[in-house]
């Protein structure tokens, strides 16, 4: 609360032009952070889908009949050769062969990492939003003051 009051005092001293600049900058940063948060959410969802797919696959015995998607609307019949190993895309074109438990562990680790990043970003975004909102409120007050004085 003390920091908020301090920032409020700092904003109070600013000119209308400076306040406009602060608000614009704040809004821009908040938008960028929101975009990043959205990307993290998408990535987390993808990893959760992968994790549940691994879970589903581990329950199927070897030799099980499956349909493999070649495109979004074209599937070919196949037989499950090995349900104990998976290839994991770790980024920059590298794939690592892992066992089912290792694959699940990888997904869980990544999900936890993304969630912690998400929480940190959310905190930063809310602080930036507060500053931008404060600047907006003070700006409106100053503009009204200028109107009434003129």
């Amino acid at each position, binding site marked *: 609360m003390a920091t908020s009051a301090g920032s409020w005092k700092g904003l109070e001293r600013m000119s209308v032009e400076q306040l406009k600049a602060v608000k614009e900058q704040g809004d821009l940063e908040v938008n960028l952070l929101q975009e990043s948060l959205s990307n993290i959410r998408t990535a987390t969802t993808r990893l959760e889908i992968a994790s549940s797919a691994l879970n589903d696959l581990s329950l199927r015995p070897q030799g099980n009949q499956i349909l493999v998607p070649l495109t979004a609307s074209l599937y070919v019949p196949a037989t499950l050769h090995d349900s104990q190993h998976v*290839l994991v895309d*770790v*980024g*920059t*074109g*590298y*794939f*690592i*062969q892992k066992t089912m438990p290792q694959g699940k562990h*990888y997904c869980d680790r990544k999900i936890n990492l993304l969630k912690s990043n998400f929480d940190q970003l959310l905190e930063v975004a809310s602080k930036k939003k507060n500053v931008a909102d404060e600047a907006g409120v003070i700006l409106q007050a100053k503009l009204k003051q200028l109107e009434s004085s003129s």
Partner: protein
Amino acid sequence: MNRRRSELRNAMSSSNLRDLQRELENKANDLSKLQKEIAKNHQMRKKYTVQLGENELVLKELDLLKDDANVYKLIGPVLVKQDLAEANANVRKRIEYISAELKRLDATVQDLEEKQNSKKDTILKLQQRIQSFQAGKGKA
């Protein structure tokens, strides 16, 4: 005679003013080019930072593996089996390269920003000169 002299003075001062305004326009164009260059560099820096982060994550994953782990590299549409040590070395080399590029970009951006600041100062001084010129003409 005096009128002729004052006419000459006016003509000279207006041509001086025109020169100053032309100079200001040129400097403003230069500043605009610099700002575009800075924006382009920032964009490249962002791209390299993302790549660096991704490569560091890959390196962490490779460091967790045992020596007998199967690692594959996607080359075009084909997965090619690769030795773990080789993959490790490749990723490290790439990290070194990207880090060096980032350092170079940082230096470039710093240099461009210094140039931008000096250009801004020059423009400010020119504007002040033009204003004082116009004020002088107004008094005359």
